């Protein structure tokens, strides 16, 4: 290791130690940021800290959960893992995770899609898991084409990295096709059957990535994910390497048969629900399987996995259940609405939209969320708007036929439910920067239910 790298590493580790042990602060960003300032090639110099290699997870929705499940399953198999669990997924967050401990067997790192171009060439991971691509934060990330170009370039700069991606997603397959042409080895996962769920909006990617013809679907799972084929050219859902069949999805959990050709089938189940979660777990199972995790250890990791990061986290406040989840773009939000509608109990919802830089300052996407579905649900007893853009959310809801009051905090929203019975849960859906304050508030207000 060069002297400057050694100095950068030592300083980064010192900052990490100071933050965690002296100041008791979150060390997910700062150590990496400081060390990177000294040594821009830091990640390349730290890659050997994971002696058996690394896996990087990217994709618009589901990165943190998928990444953490992969890490937990490796640990359940007895491996030592370096991981940016809190979701700090830019270059500084990845560097901080690599600085955080001693050596480990594997690094499992979540990366922001646009950061892959900085991370992959230096880290040269064994696998890049690309979960999905949806429209998100147009003002910051630009159009999806730009995100795709970036990932293709990142893979080209790390030729030993294999791409593991969602074969059901035309946008991810657009990346895969181009990466294959450039010599990257690609493995795909997807649903082996029609899940038979109520159709939702397809906000993007209705057209062939290669020739622009409208895609046809044999079946569709959600958004643009499904068994697609272009009627005009050869672009289609590929033969899958990892398949989920006999899929059961409901609000309480998901289960499916996971199969990898030549390896037989095993049942995977988890008590967190939603069709997007089935895809996340399928991706995690594929990556874990490639890293040598056996079925029993993967299931053991899922059984012990309790999201504490505001992803489908449940709390009890004065006898009322509060469910907190991240919803930061139309597809994520629409998936959350599906979960909410699957809850047959009378219920209430608090939608919080901020417009800080890391949320995307442009919130026009709220008009692509299918709030109209809530207007027809008799169990939906109250809808409340919050966040810096509470007024915009209120207007959006008004045009969906839903009268909503505004609340400045989760506590205030709960206060507006005083006339509703305790059995009526409150769903709190927030975008990125509103998530941690909401979680902190709920941890103060009530008790956590896993």
């Amino acid at each position, binding site marked *: 290791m060069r002297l400057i790298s050694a100095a950068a590493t030592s300083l980064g580790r010192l900052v990490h130690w100071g933050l965690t042990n002296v100041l008791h602060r979150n060390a997910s960003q700062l150590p990496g940021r400081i060390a990177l300032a000294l040594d821009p090639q830091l990640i390349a110099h730290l890659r050997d800290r994971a002696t058996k290699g690394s896996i990087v997870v990217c994709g618009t929705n589901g990165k943190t959960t998928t990444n953490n499940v992969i890490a937990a399953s490796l640990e359940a198999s007895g491996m030592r893992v370096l991981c940016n669990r809190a979701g700090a997924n830019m270059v500084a967050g990845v560097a901080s995770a690599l600085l955080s401990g001693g050596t480990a067997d594997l690094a499992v790192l979540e990366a922001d899609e646009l950061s892959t171009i900085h991370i992959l060439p230096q880290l040269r991971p064994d696998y890049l898991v690309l979960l999905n691509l949806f429209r998100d934060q147009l*003002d910051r990330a630009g159009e999806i084409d730009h995100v795709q170009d970036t990932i293709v370039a990142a893979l080209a700069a790390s030729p030993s990295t294999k791409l593991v991606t969602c074969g059901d997603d035309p946008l991810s397959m657009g990346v895969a096709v181009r990466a294959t042409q450039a010599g990257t080895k690609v493995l795909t996962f997807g649903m082996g059957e029609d899940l038979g769920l109520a159709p939702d909006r397809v*906000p993007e990617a209705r057209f062939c990535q290669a020739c622009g013809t409208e895609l046809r679907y044999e079946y569709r799972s959600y958004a643009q994910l499904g068994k697609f084929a272009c009627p005009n050219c050869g672009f289609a859902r590929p033969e899958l390497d990892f398949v989920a069949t006999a899929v059961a999805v409901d609000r309480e959990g998901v289960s499916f048969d996971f199969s990898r050709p030549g390896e037989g089938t095993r049942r995977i189940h988890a008590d967190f629900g939603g069709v997007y979660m089935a895809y996340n777990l399928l991706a995690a199972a594929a990556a874990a399987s490639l890293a040598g995790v056996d079925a029993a250890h993967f299931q053991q990791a899922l059984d012990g996995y309790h999201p504490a990061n505001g992803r489908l986290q449940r709390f009890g406040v004065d006898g009322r259940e509060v469910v907190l989840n991240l919803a930061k773009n139309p597809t994520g939000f629409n998936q959350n609405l599906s979960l909410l509608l699957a809850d047959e109990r009378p219920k209430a919802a608090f939608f919080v939209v901020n417009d800080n830089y890391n949320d995307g300052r442009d919130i*026009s996407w709220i*008009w692509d969320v299918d709030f109209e579905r809530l207007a027809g649900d008799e169990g939906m007893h109250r809808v409340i708007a919050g966040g810096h853009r509470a007024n*915009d959310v209120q207007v959006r809801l008004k045009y969906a036929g839903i009268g909503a009051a505004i609340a400045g905090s989760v506590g205030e929203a709960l206060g507006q439910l005083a006339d509703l019975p305790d059995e009526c849960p409150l769903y709190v859906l927030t975008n990125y920067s509103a998530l941690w304050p909401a979680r902190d508030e709920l941890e103060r207000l009530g008790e956590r239910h896993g």
Partner: protein
Amino acid sequence: MGSGRALRVVHLYPELLNLYGDSGNILVLRRRMEWRGISCEVEEVHTGDHPSFVDADIVFIGGGSDREQRIVCDYLLEVRRELAAFVEDGGVLGAVCGGYQLLGHSYLMGDEEVRGLSLVDLYTDRGTPRLIGNIAVESRISPQPIVGFENHGGRTHLGPGVEPMGKVLHGYGNDGTTGEEGCLYKNVVGTYVHGPLLPKNPGVADYLIARALERRFGVAELEPLDDAAELAANKVMYDRLMDEEARG
């Protein structure tokens, strides 16, 4: 009451030009007509359709990525003559972002000059950086300042005699230098303001509806609606932007 009155909205290529919540613009037009007893028929024009503007009252074009904008441009050039006749006859046309650029003589896609619809005397070239951020505009077509978001690499230049939609109070507007935003020509409104445009700017929505009613029925009066939520959202953003201006 608006008994028996009906307006026809033609939404051009919603599956291609939908980048910035543009369906919200159509929803707002529809609701604000229905709340006044005016029935609203929305016709979505898809690729492969041959749109007709003969019975149209309001035509709407949204924004899309460069690739999608180019596809739409090719389709619309085929019906340019009909669309131009609609505009010259006082037909109401709302165009946002990429749709706004299509109204002019040309725009740039990368370094390639793409021929536009020449419905309004304007053209668009490019500049760096992209102009991204919240925007507020003072305009004669809206009693409130028009607020929204802009995100465009294009710099749009109006021909002599083409009126801008308004004056930029915060943000960049057409080219980031003239202090002008959008265009007004006959009953055409072109603008970079999305967010989308109409929900928080009910004055603009009602302007489009009133012009269409006037053309179809000769009467432009609109019953007032309870716009408390819309105007509050408008004011919150306007006050925030003016506060940013004041602090420099």
